[in-house]
């Protein structure tokens, strides 16, 4: 089939029209839609991340609400182990009472130092020296056991037990104690 000149011109016009329509369709309709979609997707990804973070935070908060009372109970129990007031006012008498009650007899308790305890916020480490001038060995061990069992915040860090030459049944003892107290 041979096309005439006028037909060729019309065909060219048709092609130009098609190109114009395709360009307009892409530039004014599809392209903005596409960029809108890309933006929506990016916003969606960002929102998903934020939502996930928020959900994790809420889950952690729920866990805190669930497990908080248990932790608080432990802290309350520990707080109850520390009487109010300066440690010098109550600790020596507390230790002396334990030693007396368990048969170790008289004792002298002295505060050696007081320093902040690393990793235990709100608590102070106090170091004490306890001198027991005359006691039998077995009651002394019983006293040490009573101190260790009855006072979880107390730790015997050192001890020295020496027999008394004049009284072989008795010993002299010096205990080094570490006690956590509230700041």
């Amino acid at each position, binding site marked *: 089939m041979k096309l005439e000149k006028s*037909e*060729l011109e*019309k*065909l060219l*016009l*048709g*092609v130009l*029209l*098609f190109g114009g*329509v395709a360009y307009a*369709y892409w530039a004014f309709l599809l392209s903005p*839609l596409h960029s*809108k*979609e890309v933006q*929506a*997707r990016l916003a*969606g990804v960002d*929102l*998903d991340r934020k*939502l996930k*973070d*928020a*959900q994790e*935070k*809420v*889950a*952690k*908060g*729920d*866990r*805190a609400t669930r*497990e*908080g009372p248990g*932790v608080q109970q*432990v*802290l309350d129990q*520990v707080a109850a182990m520390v009487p109010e007031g300066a440690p010098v006012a109550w600790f020596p008498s507390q230790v002396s009472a334990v030693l007396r009650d368990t048969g170790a007899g008289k004792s002298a308790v002295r505060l050696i130092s007081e320093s902040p305890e690393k990793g235990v*916020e*709100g*608590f102070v480490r106090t170091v004490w020296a306890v001198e027991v001038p005359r006691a039998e*060995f*077995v009651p002394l*061990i019983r006293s*040490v*056991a009573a101190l*260790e*069992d009855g006072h*979880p*915040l107390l*730790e*015997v*860090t*050192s*001890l*020295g037990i*020496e*027999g008394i030459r004049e009284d*072989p049944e008795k010993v002299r003892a010096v205990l*080094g104690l570490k006690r*956590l107290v509230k700041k």
Partner: protein
Amino acid sequence: MAIRLNFHHEIDRRMQARRRDPLKLSLFFLGGLVVLMAGFYFYEAERVAGELQGVERRRFDLSRLEARAVQASKLDEEFQKKARLSGTLVERMEERFYWAPFLERLARLVPGEMQLTRISGETHGEDRRCQVSVEGVVGGASPREVAERFRAEVKNAASKLYREAQADFRALEEAPEAADGRHPVVFQIQVQFVAGKELPKPPPPRVKKVRP
């Protein structure tokens, strides 16, 4: 055969030319394409609208959740702080070294011919490393053997309870003659052990490669 003459040939040719007019055909084609494109556009627009709606929904969910998250974050921070403190306190309490059981065992191991004159000891470090010095006097026929047996028993007992237990003589000497004419033995045993948990080993030091 009769001759047939077509007097409409001019009209037919024009009609034929109109039928295959490229402009008309391309307009038809373009029209169809426009319909398809419009359909595709509406389909895409609907899809994007759905996506935008999803984003809006998520934005709404986030705005609703954010206030709770901030509150939960504060709660969690406080909880973590308390849990850390409580954990440390419980660990400190549980990781203590108890002297009483050790002294009780030590007292049970002392044989009849022996008398302890001095016990001193201390714990140090996070892993509760203990050093105990036990001094005493042994009488009887073979005091050195008794002292050695005691040392071995102390080591054995300490090994059962603690890690890295050692018990060595620091001194084992004859004391002045006793009333029965025998020479008692004075000894000092150094006992060492680790009562606490095993600490993680520090990483090996980095060795710098020296280029030749």
